[in-house]
């Protein structure tokens, strides 16, 4: 079953979906196999197929839900090494958008990104609020292998490849944090609505695994 919201990327819709998803998972857990959120939709796979009954229940739940707008989630500060050996597209990318490498790094670290949902690859974070100055269409020819941890820009989005994968994004650095851990329950610690900010680390710190993931409440 597909439930759609107005097809826009914005935080009101995010919190509306997030609240509804939590209610569905709490109240209908015995019927739900999957409940997948994206920017403006929920896709639900149900165990039984009595859709009329389910639709009635969902409508009642939606009507009575309270949107937790203030629930912004955690602020995560994630390290990124922007050395050219890891951010192998940094030179070409910065030329293409007409900024210096320093300016690219500064803009990329300045924004606080909102996590909309996880998808595409196990543990891949869909982040909003990329600075317009950093927008650049994906490469016309995807690369066959982008290494794990690569931080890239694709169109109006930025993200981290949680595993090695083919991809067409411009790679500007690498984040050494494991985004997806099979031995943890759940395998990703991130939640829709969490806030993500990047900070720069040196190549030495990257190589020696000297970094920390800082976790704060946004207003703390």
């Amino acid at each position, binding site marked *: 079953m*597909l439930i*759609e919201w107005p*097809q*826009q*990327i914005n935080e009101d819709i995010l919190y509306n979906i997030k609240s509804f998803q939590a209610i569905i998972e709490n109240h209908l857990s015995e019927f739900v*196999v*999957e*409940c*997948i*959120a*994206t*920017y*403006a*939709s929920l*896709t639900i*796979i149900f165990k039984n197929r009595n859709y009329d009954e389910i639709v009635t229940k969902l409508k009642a739940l939606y009507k009575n839900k309270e949107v937790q707008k203030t629930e912004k989630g955690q602020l995560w500060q994630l390290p990124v090494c922007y050395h050219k050996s890891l951010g192998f597209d940094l030179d070409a990318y910065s030329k293409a958008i007409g900024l210096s490498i320093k300016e690219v790094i500064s803009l990329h670290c300045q924004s606080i990104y909102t996590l909309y*949902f*996880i*998808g*595409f*690859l*196990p*543990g*891949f974070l*869909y982040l909003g609020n990329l600075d317009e100055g950093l927008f650049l269409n994906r490469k016309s020819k995807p690369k066959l292998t982008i290494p794990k941890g690569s931080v890239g820009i694709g169109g109006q989005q930025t993200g981290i490849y*949680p*595993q*090695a994968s083919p991809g067409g994004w411009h790679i500007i650095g690498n984040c050494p944090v494991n985004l*997806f851990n*099979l031995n943890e329950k*759940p*395998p*990703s610690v991130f939640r829709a609505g969490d806030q993500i900010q990047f900070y720069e680390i040196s190549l030495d710190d990257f190589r020696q695994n000297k970094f920390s993931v800082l976790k704060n409440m946004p207003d703390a």
Partner: protein
Amino acid sequence: MLKVLKLGLYTSIQDLGRWGFMKYGVPVSGAMDQLSAVKANLLLNNNNNCALIECTQQGPKLLFTKTTQIAICGADMSAQINAIDAPLNTLLNIKANDILHFRKLKYGYRTYIAVKGGFQNSTVLGSRSYFQPLTKSNVFLKDELIEYDTINDFPPASTSSIAVNEKHFNNRLIQVTKGPEFELLNKQAQAYLLNTDFTIGINNRMAYQLKELLPNKMPSILTSAILPGTVQLTPSGKILILMRDAQTNGGYPRIFNLSEAAINQLSQKRLADVVQFELKN
């Protein structure tokens, strides 16, 4: 133990899938043709979800080191045990050191080898299905060893067998329902989709691509969820039928959804086979 002597074309362990993790970006995976997979498990009185071997086009060569029973269902790849023909769709006794191998593909595309009690490779996120990077490989590796439970004696000879439903293998009609963006297509494009013989192009466990194109001016959609069986239309006119290992979301318009039976039937089709979409409400 089961020892992999020859890999075959694309051989892996699958069960009925890794459910409950799509919201973390994890594809469902699982046997492509779940009807044939479940039949093989049923013959052995296994749970439907027991892990079994999925073979594609050309089967592997396998050594069983312990006594057990197996059943093979799906495509006919001319199975032989110790070089003697072994029938499909029935129980087969396996003694220690028997070798199972396959010869010519006669019909279908994927076949399933179930073992009594299921293969005991490790469970990752609730499933034994191979899927990289959750498991170390998408396919068997040379000399790979896979655990299974042995049995002490063969049960008294059984006559259980399952009749082949020919339609499962030669039906050209792929049953679909309208996808969320179907109505955005103009009438001409809708009619083309339902009245054209489509030829299967490049295909794998992630997607089946069709060779015929449908030129269109459909806008991309805001990235939304996709499921096994979703049919996408790309801006260049390619039609992609997503299968069990597909990503969890995408930005191409979704024009159809295949029924579960249609996914199973399509899994038995291969390059150059011809199919037609049949719309059901």
